[in-house]
């Protein structure tokens, strides 16, 4: 039974190794079809995971739900880094079914990647919208990589809607709205974690996710000008000159 379930699961293993030799390992199993986190029922449920503890202002869950699903998914991880500093150096290894990623980075960066998975696979009705991105999880991604994955994922969904006779949202107005709601959850979660932890590692990891959410609307408003140079060949074929690439290391932000 377990073998069948594991065969249908996507597995990510996160290993955090610190300069003092300490190591922490997190094994994440997702249902391959639904991308739902498997085994989260057995996670500990401390007081700060109660739905009413610091409920997000846009939470659509009814009062009958006792625990915040996002908080429950995060509880074990948060507890492990209860007193860790955000900029602490860590060697983070992420094993996915296809490849292994290794990076010497800050703890907050490693944590934000894993927290991103836990949040979007928790069955929170708001975070659910980001779940397709989990299938193409990219640890340690920078802003432009995350924007690209997010936009690609949303536009794929629009194409699917179009093939089913629905009106696609090519202007990505819906994506802006999704991130607006997601950022209210990110803010609510960082508030919850402020009360649940002693130092800033966990909170700052959520802050990183919040920053991505903030940035996406500006990227869309700019007409994807930062991504445009990468598509110069396709644009040229269509007789369109691509915009100049932004300064190295400096994302542009042309306001509308």
């Amino acid at each position: 039974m377990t073998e069948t379930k594991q065969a249908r699961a996507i597995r990510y293993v996160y290993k955090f190794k610190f300069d003092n030799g300490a190591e922490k390992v997190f094994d994440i199993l997702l249902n391959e079809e639904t991308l739902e986190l498997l085994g989260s029922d057995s996670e500990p449920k401390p007081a700060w995971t109660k739905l009413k503890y610091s409920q997000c202002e846009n939470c659509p869950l009814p009062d009958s739900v006792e625990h915040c699903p996002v908080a429950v998914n995060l509880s074990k991880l948060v507890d492990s880094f209860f007193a860790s500093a955000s900029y602490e150096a860590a060697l983070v290894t992420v094993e996915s079914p296809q490849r292994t990623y290794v990076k010497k980075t800050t703890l907050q960066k490693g944590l934000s990647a894993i927290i991103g998975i836990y949040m979007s696979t928790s069955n929170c009705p708001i975070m659910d919208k980001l779940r397709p991105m989990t299938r193409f999880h990219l640890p340690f991604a920078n802003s432009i990589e995350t924007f690209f994955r997010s936009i690609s994922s949303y536009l794929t969904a629009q194409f699917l809607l179009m093939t089913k006779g629905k009106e696609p949202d090519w202007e990505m107005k819906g994506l802006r709205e999704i991130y607006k709601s997601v950022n209210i959850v990110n803010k609510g979660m960082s508030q919850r974690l402020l009360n649940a932890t002693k130092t800033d590692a966990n909170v700052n990891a959520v802050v990183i996710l919040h920053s991505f959410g903030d940035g996406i609307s500006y990227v869309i408003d700019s007409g994807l000008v930062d991504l445009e140079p990468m598509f110069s060949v396709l644009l040229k074929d269509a007789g369109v000159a691509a915009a100049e690439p932004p300064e190295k290391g400096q994302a542009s932000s042309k306001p509308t």
Partner: protein
Amino acid sequence: MNERILIVDDEESLRMSLKFKLKSAGFDVDVAVDGEEALNRLKSKQVDVVLLDINMPRMSGIEALTRIRQDFPQTEAIMLTGFADFSTAIECLKMGARDYLVKPVDTTELVTRVRSLIRSRVSERALQEVQERLSSVLPNDLMGPLTKIQDLLDQASKLEGDAESKERKKLLGTARELIAKMEKNLQGLLDVSKQTAQLEPRERR
């Protein structure tokens, strides 16, 4: 020229999202990954406001703040903290930071705070200019002539009879000239004061 803001944070996504917001609000924006890079940027370009993360590797935000206050007193600092560490934030305010924000930063609030800080900075500089002008004008252009006028009036009051009326007229004429000069200086001060009041009407209430 737009006001220039320098964002200092070790996290790329945060630098980028704040930069997006501040650029779209009309500011010129530069970024630095830590305190050391921030100080180098400040050496090459004048910055109006620096947004400074408190917890950073290599050089902490507090250390960077100390250096900025010392070497670049014209640059104002707003601290960013990912953890509501109010004692550290208050310590930063005592060290010369003008404000602090807790992450995740509400970007609309950030723009409001930056604008407010720049407004009050312009206002403070104008006030400082008035004070400097006052302190130079009062002793030389007002107190000096006033002493001279008193002296002239004393001399005039001692003169008696028609024979000395010509001399009295001369003294009073000089006093009148000095009074006209003082009036002109006072008017100049009043004009500067009015201009300062118009710069920041809300802060004059």
